[in-house]
Structure formats: structure tokens, C-alpha cells
């Protein structure tokens, strides 16, 4: 169908899935490199292995499903899933953990539901949630921020040995994440006492804040290149900040400050890179606002009350459940048509029906 008669020499931009995913990959670089700078070579190794496994598993499943390999591999989506899962995992995990996570992400969450474009859940977050439930010990040992080259830094060879499962992290190499530490401070300790007791390896909080800011830079790239719209990140972070402010205002001695909730965990990364997944997120603009707000709300419900320290993965997966519902109620009005009549239909009892 060709309704457009274009005569002038218009410029044509080619947008393909491969290009979009390529920009997403590029936009992960600031966050990924900052995380590597603070938490060591393990981050980079995780990402490399996860991305490699992503491509291999994608090719394997496509073969099993008897689908053409070339186009699906060139769209870079498996690579993005791998990178996103890779940066979410703690540095210095063994290889089999990444393998299990990637199988869950690519084989189960993506291809069992029909491949790219059909998956109701964010594949990387399915992999992450499964790993968190299955291997809570490995998944909550985050590397201490020793940097790349310092005295206590883990050398590349040492990081590789950890990845191959030949060594397991010692206490000096790991520490809790800020959210984890704050969660387990206990009911009896006030927040001020908790921070005064110096609960984390030195520099942890600063490292997390800077990594979060680097993700914000990456998110800015996505926004400028129009890969994502502002709706989901803004409504997500806005709801999160609002909720955190209210809780903090009610009881500052037991709830963390809004700034801590924004920068201390994966909120910014999740808002720009996870929640904006075009397949599993809501479609319309109004729907995106509701979707983002739901994730922000759930994060602030799960973080203080749930069993696991961070909540981005669970919040995103729960809102993925709600996406068909949101899309149904937020379908935009088409020009020339009345707004879609949604919801429970209350039958009008008029005279016609009473007689019939």
C-alpha cells in the first residue's frame, strides 16, 4: 500500500531493530565502564561472557525452531539481553551462574514465548530473578569497590579465575550493596546510627552513586537518539522519589532518604534500560506513564518490605504482567473516532429491553 507520493529528495533514515539495539549497546558503555572502574574487571568479564552466551544460545534455539539464523542474529537483541544481564550480576560470579541466567533469559523467557517481539516479560530480568531466587548467596556477594589497579584491586587474571570457578571470593573482596546493608540494619538501629557505624567498605556508596549517574548519561544518549521516550523513566523515577520522600518525611529514622533510593541501587539503570524495553513495556504514551509509575511504586513497596535487597527486577516483571491490562485501558483515540469504551459495561435498562 503506497499512499504517499513523495517527489522532493527527502532524506531517508533507516531504523531497524539492529540499529536501535546497537544504540542501546552504545548507551550502556558509560555505565558499564564506570562500574568496571569501581568494581573491577569482573564486570567486564561478566558482560563479555553473557553477551557471547546470548548469541550462542540465540543461534542454538533458532536452529531448534528451524528459523533463519542471519536476520535474527544481526538484530543484536540477544547481545543487548546479555549485556543487560551481565551488568546486573555481581562481579566475580562463576561462569555457570551466567549460563543458567542466560538460558532462562533467552531460551525460556524469550523463545518459549515466540522469540523477539512476543515475549511478555523482560528476558534479562527473568534471568536475574531466577538467579536471585536460585542462588541467593552468590547473587548477594557484590565486589568491594577496590578499583582496577589499586593495592587491593583484583587483577584480570584473578577475576578470570573466579569466572572459571577456580576461586571463590574472599571476605576482603566482597561487601554488601548499600541497599542490602540498609535492609539488614535491624529494627533497633536508627538510620543515623547505622550510617555513623560505617557499615560498608569505604567508598561503596560513592561508587554506587557515580555508577548510577553514569547510567543517567547513557539514558540521556537513548533519549537524544529517540530510542526511548521520556514517559517511562520520568514517571518511574518521579513516583519513586515521591514515595521515598513521603516515607522519609513520616519516619526518617527507619526509611532511607530519597536520594539514597534514587542513586544507591539500580533505579536509574532500571528506569532507562530495563523498563523501556519496547517489547515488554506498555505501548501508548498514557500507558507508559502508568507503567512507569507502577514500577516506581512497586520498587518502593518491595525495597522496605521484601526479602531481597533491590526490587527493580521484581517490580518490572510484575508490571510486565499488567501491560495487557494497561494497554487495554489506555488505547489512544483515533482521529475521527470516539474514545474506546472500556471497562465493565453497565447495561442501560431502557424501555426496549424491559419489554423484551
Amino acid at each position, binding site marked *: 500500500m503506497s499512499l504517499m507520493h513523495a517527489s522532493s529528495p527527502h532524506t531517508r533514515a533507516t531504523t531497524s531493530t539492529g540499529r536501535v539495539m546497537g544504540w542501546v549497546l552504545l548507551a550502556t558503555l558509560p555505565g558499564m565502564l564506570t562500574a568496571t572502574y569501581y568494581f573491577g574487571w569482573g564486570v567486564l568479564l561478566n558482560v563479555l561472557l553473557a553477551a557471547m552466551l546470548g548469541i550462542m544460545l540465540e543461534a542454538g534455539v533458532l536452529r531448534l525452531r528451524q528459523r533463519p539464523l542471519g536476520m535474527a542474529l544481526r538484530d543484536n537483541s540477544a547481545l543487548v539481553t546479555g549485556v543487560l544481564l551481565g551488568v546486573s550480576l555481581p562481579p566475580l560470579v562463576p561462569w555457570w551462574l551466567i549460563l*543458567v541466567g542466560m538460558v532462562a533469559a533467552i531460551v*525460556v523467557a524469550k523463545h518459549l514465548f515466540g522469540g523477539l517481539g512476543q515475549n511478555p516479560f523482560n528476558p534479562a530480568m527473568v534471568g536475574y530473578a*531466577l538467579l536471585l*531466587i*536460585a*542462588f*541467593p548467596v552468590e547473587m548477594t556477594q557484590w565486589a568491594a569497590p577496590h578499583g582496577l589497579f589499586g593495592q587491593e584491586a583484583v587483577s584480570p587474571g584473578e577475576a578470570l579465575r573466579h569466572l572459571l570457578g577456580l576461586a571463590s571470593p574472599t571476605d576482603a573482596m566482597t561487601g554488601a550493596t548499600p541497599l542490602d546493608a540498609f535492609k539488614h540494619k535491624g529494627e533497633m538501629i536508627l538510620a543515623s546510627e547505622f550510617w555513623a557505624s560505617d557499615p560498608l567498605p569505604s567508598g561503596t556508596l560513592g561508587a554506587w552513586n557515580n555508577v548510577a549517574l553514569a547510567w543517567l548519561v547513557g539514558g540521556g544518549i537513548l533519549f537524544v537518539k529517540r530510542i526511548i521516550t521520556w514517559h517511562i523513566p520520568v514517571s518511574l523515577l518521579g513516583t519513586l522519589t515521591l514515595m521515598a520522600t513521603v516515607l522519609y518525611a513520616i519516619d526518617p529514622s527507619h526509611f532511607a532518604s530519597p536520594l539514597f533510593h534514587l542513586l544507591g541501587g539500580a533505579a536509574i539503570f532500571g528506569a532507562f534500560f530495563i523498563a523501556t524495553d519496547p517489547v515488554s513495556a506498555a505501548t501508548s504514551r498514557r500507558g507508559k506513564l502508568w507503567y512507569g509509575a507502577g514500577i516506581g511504586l512497586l520498587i518502593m513497596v518491595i525495597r522496605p518490605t521484601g526479602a531481597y535487597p533491590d526490587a527493580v527486577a521484581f517490580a518490572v516483571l510484575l508490571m510486565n504482567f499488567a501491560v495487557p491490562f494497561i494497554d487495554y485501558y489506555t488505547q489512544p483515540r483515533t482521529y475521527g473516532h470516539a474514545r474506546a469504551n472500556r471497562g465493565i459495561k453497565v447495561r442501560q435498562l431502557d424501555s426496549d429491553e424491559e419489554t423484551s
Partner: protein
Amino acid sequence: MSQFNELTRNGLWSNNPALVQLLGLCPLLAVTSTVVNALGLGLATLLVMIGANVSVSLIRHHVPASVRLPAFVMIIAAFVTCAELLMQAYTFRLYQILGIFIPLIVTNCAILGRADAFAAKNPLLPAATDGLMMGLGFAAVLVVLGAVRELFGQGTLFAGMELLLGPGAANWQVTVFADYSFLFLVLPPGAFFATGLLIATKNVIDDRLERRRHRQQATPTKENRRVRVTGIIR
């Protein structure tokens, strides 16, 4: 004899209560973390199913249709109480592990479903056979699921069989993977995944058989698709 064959095939495979009718999923998902739990509950369900089918078939001409469901539930509850007391007497520790899921056999819709759909319309012998085969089919799925989850969840097989089969079975435990734990499969989400994969496996096998049959005979067979079941029943 042909009716016996058909009942057997339906119960164990083509109309399996767990894999095709998707009935009784609550105990299926809840207790199948090990083989011994699955076998214990499977045997109890089998016993109740045979008893319920036999009794319902015997009284089928004397119960008015309007009150048949309460009557069936009473019969099932009586048999469940028997099973519960038996387990309490002879396998007390397993009884404690299975806990609430033994009394909950009353609400297993596979049992009520067979009583209402089959036993209430058929004479004693077919009803008893149907109960036996449906119960065996349900128990078989429980045990397979228990084995898969135990093997890939904690790396063992037949751990703790002495709880059900007496002290003679104490050394039955086979440790396949030492020092291994995949907590996901032990927890309830793993039960959903494993059940889904089992259903998918059954459908793949059915599909293969169907294709083979298709190659051998050209005329399509009449099929009878019902709502809310997996697979096609002939």
C-alpha cells in the same frame, strides 16, 4: 477387554488428569519437591480415587441428580479420612511433612471430576478400572515431577524413602550430583516450570506419533477437542 484398554490409555496418557485435564494442580505443584513426598501423596490419592469411584458407581441409581455433588464430596471425604488415619498410623513422619495436603485431597477436582463424569454413569467394574488408571496416571506424573525436581533441585534421587517404605529403604538414596543445589526447582516456581516442560514433552511425543500415523493412513481421524485441556482426545 477393549474398554479396559481404552480406560487404561485414557488414564495413563491421553486423558491424564494432571497433564491433560490439568486437574489437581495444587497438590501437584506443592508436594513434588522429592520422590518420597510425591509417591506418598500419589498413593493416597490413588486409594481415595478407587474408593470414591467404586462407591459412587454403586449408589449411582439411588442418589438424585440434584444432590449428587454433596453426596460425592461426603464419600470422598470419608475415604480421605481413612487415608489420613492410615498415614498417621504407619508413616507418621511423612504424614507430618505432607501436612495440610492430605486432608486437601478432598478438594482435588480430579477425584470429584472422575466421580461425576465417569463413575456416576457407569457400572462397578469400569468405574473401578477408571479410578485405578486415573489414580495411577496422576501418581505417575507426581512421581516423575518429584524425581525431576529432586534430581535437578538437590542432586539426589529417592532421598528419605524410609519415611514411606520402612527402614529397609533407608539406603536407597542415590546421590547423582554431590554438593549441588538449584534452589529454584525446589521452590514452587520451579514446580510450575517443570510441569510446563512435562506437558510440552507430552505434546511433542503426541505430535510425533500423530505425524507418523498421518504418513501411514491418509484419512484423517475424527477429533474431539474440549475446552481447558491440553491435547486432543479421541
